[in-house]
């Protein structure tokens, strides 16, 4: 029977010349390079293949040619849609910017009943009412919040321990809902709490007004108690009791947990993951310490290097993937965020994976004294005496003055990765972001020298590890693809 179609070779371009489209490349491992295009699609290739691509000697019948063409690394006479598609995807990546500032954090008190090793704000004793936010400040904070152009607004209560000033939380929630009757935003609330003062009254309020809870769980009992001591009490047991109580009252999906890696955590990643599974969590964020506040003051930040954290992360990710292969469902959230940037045309709201940085664009924080900062880390730095990121004060400055302040705009304009030495040529630029807080804390300027940057080292190795997993382990690839959310 005669074939309906011509042989495959008949569909190859008649003219074998092609044009390169924008891409960057970097070594993936000793045997391979990875090329990444303007919108994050990648292709691994050998050095010889990279040379052939760039010097226009890659033949159209080579399978690599078709792969590179389909991912918009090259354009030949057969196709003229690549630029339009790249444009659309690039624009989609940045679509969050006009919808800036979705997250507004209210530090309703600095008081706390814990003394965590890495706590990033100065702790005050429980009877220091001088460290509580006032109602006039909260009203000004809400004025600021509803001037955001974002259709979705999340209000997060931070501390100290915010539940020590629960009356103000109630006031803000009720007032925000009242204002939202005319604003019609998609409004959400979350309290970041150690759960130690959780009461039935608080849970009733949270259930009635759909307020979520976020807590800290650093691992098994001995590790959690060492990292997060509560003098005279078992901090771990208080947290576990609180988790169970909150889930019983609000539902399992209304409470999440975060962990922070200290030097004590480094050899315990599988124990930490097991603890999260034991407590019924289906995801974990393997979070490294930030060089701010008490973490610097108490030398905890100096407790480990980027490479030590990377070993912790790699061991943890391998373990999580193995658990998934055995049929358990558990996600590593940081990997999931990165995969979202790698596998979809969408950007992320995660502050440190954006260019320009997410400072002010993703979040602002209202300190207990009315001062406004573009990130939680910037507020922590202020508590240690450096107010370089202070945008102004709710009581004395307007929204425009604060959002157009040099304290916000300077680090934003300096941190656009496309203009930063080493970043502008880095293949991982579409996946990465900028962290002016980190570089100011470690190198004294918003940009930092990336060859000396722990932030850069950490992110690049995470990206390499994820791509290698995706390329070399088909079963892991299927699991990782299932973690993508948008």
């Amino acid at each position, binding site marked *: 029977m005669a074939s309906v179609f011509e042989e495959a070779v008949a569909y190859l371009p008649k003219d074998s010349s092609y044009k*390169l489209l924008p891409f*960057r*490349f970097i070594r993936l491992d000793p045997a391979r390079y990875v090329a990444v295009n303007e919108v994050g699609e990648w292709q691994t290739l050998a050095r010889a293949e990279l040379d052939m691509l*760039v010097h226009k000697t890659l033949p159209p019948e080579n399978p690599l040619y078709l792969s590179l063409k389909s991912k918009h690394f090259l354009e030949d006479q057969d196709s003229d849609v690549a*630029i339009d598609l790249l444009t659309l995807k690039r624009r989609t990546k940045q679509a969050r910017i006009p919808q800036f500032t979705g997250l507004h954090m209210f530090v309703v008190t600095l008081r706390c009943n814990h003394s965590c090793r890495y706590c990033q704000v100065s702790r005050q004793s429980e009877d220091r009412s001088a460290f509580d936010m006032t109602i006039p400040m909260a009203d000004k904070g809400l004025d600021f919040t509803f001037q955001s152009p974002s259709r979705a607004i999340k209000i997060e209560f931070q501390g100290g321990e915010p539940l020590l000033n629960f009356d103000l939380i109630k006031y803000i929630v009720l007032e925000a809902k009242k204002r939202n009757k005319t604003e019609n935003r998609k409004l959400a609330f979350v309290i970041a709490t150690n759960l130690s003062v959780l009461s039935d009254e608080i849970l009733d309020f949270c259930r009635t007004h759909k307020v979520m809870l976020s807590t800290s769980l650093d691992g098994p009992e001995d590790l959690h108690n060492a990292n997060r001591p509560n003098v005279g009490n078992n901090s771990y047991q208080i947290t576990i009791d609180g988790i169970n109580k909150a889930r019983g009252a609000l539902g399992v999906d209304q409470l999440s947990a975060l962990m922070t890696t200290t030097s004590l955590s480094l050899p315990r990643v599988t124990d930490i993951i097991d603890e999260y599974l034991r407590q019924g969590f289906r995801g974990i964020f393997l979070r490294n310490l930030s060089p701010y506040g008490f973490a610097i003051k108490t030398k905890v930040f100096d407790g480990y290097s980027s490479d030590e954290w990377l070993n912790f992360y790699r061991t943890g990710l391998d373990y999580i993937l193995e658990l998934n292969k055995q049929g358990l469902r558990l996600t590593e959230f940081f990997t999931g965020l990165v995969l979202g940037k790698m596998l979809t045309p969408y950007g992320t709201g995660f502050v440190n994976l954006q260019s320009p940085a997410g400072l002010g664009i993703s979040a602002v924080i209202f300190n207990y004294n009315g001062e406004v900062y573009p990130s939680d880390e910037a507020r922590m730095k202020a508590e240690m005496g450096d107010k370089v990121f202070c945008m102004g004060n709710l009581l004395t400055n307007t929204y425009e003055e604060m959002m157009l302040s040099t304290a916000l705009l300077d680090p934003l304009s300096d941190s656009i990765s496309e203009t930063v030495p080493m970043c502008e*040529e880095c293949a991982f630029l579409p996946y990465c972001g900028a962290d002016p807080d980190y570089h100011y804390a470690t190198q004294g300027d918003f940009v930092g020298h990336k060859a000396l940057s722990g932030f850069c080292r950490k992110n690049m190795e995470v990206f390499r590890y994820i791509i290698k997993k995706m390329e070399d382990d088909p079963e892991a690839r299927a699991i990782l693809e299932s973690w993508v959310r948008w």
Partner: protein
Amino acid sequence: MNGISRAGDEHCLVLNTSIYGLDAIKKTAYRFADKASVILQPASENAVSVTFNFVGKHAATNPEQVIGDFCNELLDQDLREIIKRETTPVRNIILAHAFSRTSLVEQE
């Protein structure tokens, strides 16, 4: 390694600028700031000398390995220059189109 001279703690490499662009050499040197302080000086009309002073742990390890990595990175930078020359106009078109109907681009 061929082409490297050594005087005390300093290692020197001479590069032909008709083969490697100065931008590529400078970008490579910038990338190696965590391993060595690198000084660039003209050596002749078509040559530049690259002097390495190793810092930190690299002073005690294998300097020639670092210089070998430097040479490999230089080849990568050279290739990046070719890609950049060819694709910069297209990248600019993509960005201009991407942001053409947003308030991020000022109207004339």
